[in-house]
């Protein structure tokens, strides 16, 4: 995401609260993004985000832009904030903490938006032209759909140039992103633990799971069965089915499994065999018997003489 040095102006076109970035390299709270799981289906129109990367942009222009599109203006780490609008909107907080594209995309997706136009106003000097930059960002991935468009405009022309630029981008904005691939995993054993990329996603039978495009490792384990591991490559929009058949393992071959509650259970070991403990018990009984017998036999008489030649006492 673009660096915002002083203040950030967040604008919501359709009455949605928006916010913007800061330049911290912190990750958002996006468990679903970490797992690669897809968010809920987008149901509301997109959020349009307008950001300014400098405090040299005339306040009048910012006011005009805000009035034009109904934006909220949130200064972040600015030395001379032009406007301050407090917000408790979690989306604002999420985007404000973003340091990379994925973070921005996850924040956009968490607002149920299908994309965002990020407009950056910046100015190198107090009297120079206003640089107007527009990016279109995907939800979740946060990647730019189109090459960045930049214009150098005088302040008076900046506002008038904004509308046609945004309108030109709207068709792209409203084209829905490719759907997330889905993976349906079937297992011949109910209650088997299903893990995707090392994360437990549930026990069989399990519903289709939406995953990020790419390669995923599927691991299925069940008590009494040999574990199965598969790798699957998922393309955007693909619906893949993976049928896994677990094979019952013998008592000796069974090693270690993780059961549904997460506890680790060891398989049969050498000490599980009955004959081992029969032998051990026999040895113990004989050993104790011999020891006690010898002990009793020797304790009944005088203690043995030490090794060596006895010397007479002195009188």
């Amino acid at each position: 995401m673009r660096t915002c040095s002083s203040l950030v102006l967040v604008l919501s076109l359709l009455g949605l609260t928006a916010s913007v970035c800061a330049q911290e390299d912190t990750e958002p709270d996006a468990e679903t993004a970490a797992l690669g799981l897809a968010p809920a289906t987008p149901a509301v129109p997109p959020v349009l985000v307008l950001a300014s990367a400098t405090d040299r942009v005339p306040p009048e222009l910012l006011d005009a832009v805000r009035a034009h599109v109904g934006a909220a203006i949130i200064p972040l780490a600015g030395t001379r904030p032009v406007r301050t609008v407090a917000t408790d909107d979690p989306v604002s907080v999420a985007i404000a903490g973003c340091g990379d594209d994925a973070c921005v995309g996850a924040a956009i997706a968490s607002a149920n938006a299908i994309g965002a136009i990020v407009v950056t106003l910046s100015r190198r000097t107090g009297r120079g032209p206003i640089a107007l930059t527009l990016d279109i960002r995907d939800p979740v991935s946060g990647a730019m759909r189109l090459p960045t468009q930049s214009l150098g405009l005088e302040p008076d022309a900046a506002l008038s140039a904004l509308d046609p630029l945004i309108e030109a981008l709207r068709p792209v904005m409203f084209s829905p992103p490719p759907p997330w691939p889905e993976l349906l995993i079937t297992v011949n054993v109910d209650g088997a633990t299903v893990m995707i990329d090392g994360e437990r996603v549930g026990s069989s039978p399990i519903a289709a799971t939406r995953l990020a495009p790419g390669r995923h490792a599927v691991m299925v384990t069940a008590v009494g069965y040999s574990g199965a591991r598969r790798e699957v490559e998922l393309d955007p929009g693909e619906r893949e089915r993976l049928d896994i058949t677990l094979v019952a393992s013998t008592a000796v071959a069974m090693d270690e499994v993780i059961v549904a509650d997460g506890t680790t259970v060891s398989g049969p070991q050498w000490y599980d065999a009955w004959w081992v403990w029969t032998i051990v018990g026999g040895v113990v009984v004989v050993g104790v018997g011999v020891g006690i017998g010898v002990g009793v036999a020797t304790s009944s008489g005088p203690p043995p003489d030490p090794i060596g030649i006895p010397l007479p006492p002195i009188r």
Partner: protein
Amino acid sequence: MRNTRPVLPAFVLPAIAIALTLSCAAEPLEGFTLDIQLQGVQLSAVDNVRLILTPQAMGGVMPSFSAPEMMSYEDGGVALSVDDDGQLVILITGEYFRANAVPTGAGDLDPRLSLQFWSDDEIPRNMTPQIRGVVTASGFDAAAGAAYLPTWPLTLGAQFTLTIPCTAGRETQCRPTAP
């Protein structure tokens, strides 16, 4: 039941240890080890070695070892007797000494013999007996050394070295075949 099985060795192993301890409890203890170290004496020249243990006087009374008759051990290789002065004389035959001593020097020089003794004397002595060693070699009393025993009664498991050097002027008898 599964979780209790690994615990079983914790009971089994101590039981085996106790059994072994009981079975080994009757083993006799090590005696007091006396190392007789000859210096400048060839092993082949030793005719015999005498150890004379002399009790020390206590309160003006000269004690003595009590032994009514001569006793022999190691198939006659070691003989114990008490002389008229109440001294205990331990005579080690040359044959036994030569068969059991180990040279610690070049050739058969500086032999050392280890013997184990014990005493069930119940009266401890602050003044421990003196022990003198006399080596008869080539027909002469050629080497002699003396010391005091570290404790009395002898401490089981302890070790003491009595050094018996060749007497000055008796080199010919101590080392008759030495170059």
